[in-house]
């Protein structure tokens, strides 16, 4: 009898828009860094970078504006997650969490991938959706990067990964962990044909993404102020029992320590990528890369 009154979990229907994402243009948005208020339209026009320089997080769809207009075509959008561990705990139910996140984002999982062009140069792209369980790396995430890398290999084009992730998806256990080698195996193969992998690290990039593909790209670009690290700040503070410096694990800190190639403001990103890609794709057509070696 009790079952009658229990609300049935809402099924996820593709394409169904259940949440109005549009903030009215005349609404004020508060910068989480400096606290200043900016008109939403003005903020969008400035790529969601505050006057103070703070880069606000973008959704995977918002990032698609980085590519030549109308050039982005989604691929592998039909891959959806399972609940391989039947993960249920008193505080946490993975199947329910997936449904909630799917309703919230309209996506099956934390990643959109496909092909696009930047200044006329074709490439494969993957974009994380941080709103989906913290952009965590599970089976779907790993599969989409692996397929993007394999398509880049077949089509002989570069791969751009746009990353914001808290790390591996705990709810998929060791299957999530094993996505790290899966992805790196496909990237190693892409490397054999001399096509670059460019990793764009946005705030934040932690754990699994850093310990696999994001930190071994041929070119690593970070957004100003992005937090980048293997272990989380809280974990380290607990381990060493002392406060960490404020800039610890920032993009600038990581560049100083030799872990990334450049910090590029969002407003310069498109031109930077366009110019960079040209260096790798407009080489002498006969020039073949050196034989692959470890």
């Amino acid at each position, binding site marked *: 009898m009790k079952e009658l009154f229990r609300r049935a979990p809402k099924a996820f229907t*593709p394409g169904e828009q*259940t949440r109005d*994402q*549009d903030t009215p243009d005349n609404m004020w948005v508060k910068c989480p860094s400096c606290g200043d208020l900016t008109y939403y339209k003005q903020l969008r026009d400035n*790529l969601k970078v505050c006057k103070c320089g703070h880069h606000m997080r*973008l*959704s*995977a*769809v*918002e*990032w698609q*504006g*980085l590519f030549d*207009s109308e050039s*982005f075509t*989604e691929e592998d959008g*039909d*891959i*959806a997650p*399972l*609940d391989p*561990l039947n993960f*249920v*705990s008193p*505080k*946490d139910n993975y199947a329910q969490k997936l449904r909630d996140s799917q309703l919230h*984002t*309209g996506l099956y999982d934390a990643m959109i991938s496909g092909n696009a062009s930047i200044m006329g140069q074709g490439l494969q792209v993957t974009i994380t*959706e941080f709103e989906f369980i913290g952009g965590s790396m599970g*089976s*779907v995430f*790993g599969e989409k990067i692996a397929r993007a890398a394999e398509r880049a290999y077949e089509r002989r084009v570069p791969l751009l990964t746009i990353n914001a992730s808290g790390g591996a998806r*705990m709810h998929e*256990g*060791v*299957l999530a*962990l094993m*996505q*790290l*080698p*899966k992805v*790196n*195996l496909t*990237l*190693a193969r892409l490397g054999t044909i001399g096509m670059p992998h460019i990793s764009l690290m946005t705030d934040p990039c932690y754990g*699994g993404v*850093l*310990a*696999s593909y994001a*930190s*071994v790209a041929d070119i690593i670009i970070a957004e100003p102020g992005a937090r980048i690290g*293997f*272990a989380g700040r809280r*974990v380290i503070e607990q381990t*060493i029992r002392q406060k960490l410096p404020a800039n*610890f*694990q920032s993009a600038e800190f990581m560049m100083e*320590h030799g872990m990334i190639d450049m910090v590029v403001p*969002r407003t310069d*990103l498109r031109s930077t990528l366009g110019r960079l890609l040209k260096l790798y794709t407009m080489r002498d057509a006969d020039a073949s890369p050196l034989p692959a070696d470890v």
Partner: protein
Amino acid sequence: MKTPLSAWDKVQISRHVQRPRTLDYVRVLCEEYFEFHGDRRFADDAAIVAGVGRIDGQSVVIIGHQKGRDTRENMRRNFGMPKPEGYRKAMRLFHHAQKFALPVICLIDTPGADPSMESESRGQGNAIAENILVMAQLRTPIVSLVIGEGGSGGALAIGVTDRILMLEHSVYSVAAPEASAAILWRDSSKAPDAAKTMRITAQDLKDMAIVDTLIPEPEGGAHNDPDATIRRAGIAIMQSVNQLNALPTSILLDQRYQKYRVIGAIKTMPTNQSSMGEPLSFL
């Protein structure tokens, strides 16, 4: 009549202070062994031991995590939690193995990679990622055996191998049970629940087709008869090495690619559209 061991029981056995460690395997299995030190860049990390030895007449590279048996040794070995220089020492030995066409044996026993400010500053994430990339392309056979705890990326950094073997009471997880409980429920005392929920036992991994072979342990665990356990494991490892030695390199690499390429739990559904905003104008 034996009571079945819980996942948390197995975690305890996998961490037992008398459980055989990497150097015990070296002592029992190797006819000859030299430990190599240092990453040639920064330091020698005692949490990873690496060297070249001989087992059954076959020269091999052996790399393993090393925990201590008392406080002093555990401090020196950082409880088996490697720093970037430890992984880069392993990386040096991977290259060494390739140069001299030696098979690689990796023994996994770590709660995870060292989470400290110095490790972050020297690129812990990068050190692990680079090792994964190098193992992916290594042109000689590589076999791993989980002898205790397989903790997260810290384990994987020497664990991307053609065959994965596990001792019966060892565990392998995306994060150590305490860390998992802290991340999921902000309460590390719920580690026993995490151990159960997250399916981390050797049997779980065999069921998920990630692990190839389970090595039986004496009743109660390997510490009750270390030498017998090690010999049994040694036979299984060398069987794998010999099988892999017989394969042409291209097939070896293709099989390794396929082994990992198929891992994951996914299904296909009709494509849908994200509802998270509109593209911004970068033009």
